């Protein structure tokens, strides 16, 4: 159903995905927060023209999702696979999303800013993802005059994005660091170096399945490369520490670890009704088991895909059911059983 998750990225054991988001606005038009419908349409047209009429290969690679015509479930599903942001959904009647066919780039129009370029791929490849975002940005800029200030850089609706307008992030799976209690202190330490940790779906969301989104907090005064390097260095450290913690647990309590992983696998393969929170936590154990080559009954891609497919709208879409938490929990258990028991 979704492409980008299936890509094989480098170092994808701990780093699930890498993402760059750029915030841009068009000079002379109010930001979406106070623009009228006519101005919103004007922005949509300007950006669409900039992409579809450009003389680059990009022109043929994008499709207009026509998000205003999609059902709520379809839109929600796009949020769950990180192709569009929750903020865009709030405003989707006058927004637009241009998506690259392989789903690694989405251009959100009239989210909080006029233009949000998002590039996303599996594994640890921030630099590749940044190169791509940079190129898409250049293509748009050929036909659009950005709101830019010599001192302050790219001007954005929220002052927390002004400057580079960049939010670079990696999604990390840190089960062993969570078990050992290290992640609790991580938040404080990390904020001191201009980074921030969030849950799976960004700002204000809870951590589920031991997945953490690590991103830069500051956007002004550092170049994009510095921001990415900073994030890369910290990510490398966390990956090393996560593996050290895993090896340490394996050394001191091998049976306990295997037991935990196989119990989680057992529940997932047999449950008849399961919430997304429980499923995420159990999938986290199984994922660690696969990474550590303890559990060989299932491959990592199946688990990665499941972590997205068990989210509420995705389950509803896959199972073809209408809203309702209980129905959803039954359908979710079925989706998981089918995938895990498939040989």
């Amino acid at each position: 159903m979704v492409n980008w998750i299936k890509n094989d990225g480098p170092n994808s054991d701990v780093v699930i995905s890498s993402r760059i988001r750029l915030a841009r606005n068009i000079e002379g038009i109010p930001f979406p927060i106070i623009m009228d419908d006519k101005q919103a349409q004007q922005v949509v047209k300007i950006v669409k023209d900039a992409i579809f009429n450009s003389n680059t290969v990009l022109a043929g690679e994008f499709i207009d999702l026509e998000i205003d015509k999609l059902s709520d479930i379809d839109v929600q599903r796009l949020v769950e696979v990180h192709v569009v942001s929750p903020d865009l959904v709030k405003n989707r009647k006058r927004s637009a999303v241009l998506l690259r066919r392989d789903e690694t780039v989405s251009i959100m129009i009239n989210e909080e800013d006029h233009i949000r370029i998002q590039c996303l791929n599996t594994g640890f490849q921030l630099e590749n993802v940044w190169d791509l975002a940079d190129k898409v940005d250049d293509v748009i800029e050929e036909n659009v005059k950005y709101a830019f200030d010599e001192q302050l850089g790219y001007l954005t609706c929220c002052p927390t994005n002004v400057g580079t307008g960049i939010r670079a992030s990696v999604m990390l799976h840190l089960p062993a660091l969570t078990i050992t209690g290290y992640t609790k202190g991580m938040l404080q330490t990390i904020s001191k170096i201009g980074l921030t940790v969030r849950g799976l779906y960004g700002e204000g969301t809870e951590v589920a399945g031991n997945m953490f989104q690590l991103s830069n907090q500051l956007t002004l005064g550092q170049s994009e490369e510095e921001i990415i390097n900073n994030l890369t260095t910290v990510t490398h450290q966390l990956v090393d520490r996560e593996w050290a913690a895993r090896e340490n647990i394996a050394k001191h309590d091998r049976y306990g670890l295997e037991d935990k992983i196989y119990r989680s696998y057992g529940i997932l393969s047999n449950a008849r009704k399961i919430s997304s929170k429980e499923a995420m936590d159990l999938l986290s154990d199984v994922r660690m088991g696969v990474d550590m080559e303890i559990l060989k009954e299932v491959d990592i891609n199946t688990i990665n895909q499941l972590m997205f497919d068990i989210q509420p709208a995705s389950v509803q879409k896959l199972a073809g059911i209408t809203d309702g938490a209980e129905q959803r929990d039954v359908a979710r258990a079925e989706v998981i059983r089918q995938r895990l028991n498939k040989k």
Partner: protein
Amino acid sequence: MYCEKCKKRPATLHFTKIVNDEKTEVHLCEQCAQEMGKVNTMFTPFSITDLLSSFFEVGGEGQQTIYGQQALKCPQCGFTFGDIKKTGRLGCGHCYVTFREQLMPILKRIQGRTEHSGKVPKKIGGQIWLSREIKRLKDELNKAVAEEAYERAAQLRDKIRELEGKPVDGQGRW
């Protein structure tokens, strides 16, 4: 646990709001939460507007200045500083010009710095882009020389000369 609002259906959504260290918890069912506008998605992105607005509350002398400026309106979008304070957002790019004086200390508090040093759009940037690019290349050149990577240094030097509009010396000499 039952929903705090309808008290009939089980509470499946739990919100924690922390304002000024005061923690409030709200427990709702999906339906009531949707009606109250707490969620329009199936999970709950909470707004950082509250948090952000607090950055605009400046204590002491600064406060007076800022309140004194509340009537000032952005000529391009009509936003006032009061609007910015309330929403934690700006109305348009020109607001950064209109409210520059008030915004600078706030940006300093949020971002730590107030000088952009990243990418510059080529079209608008023109000269800014050129001088920053030259500076960046010179930094790289110094690094290359320090590392004794002379071939790379020569390439960088040619590139710098090209940008500065000076003729490139094909002999590879300085």
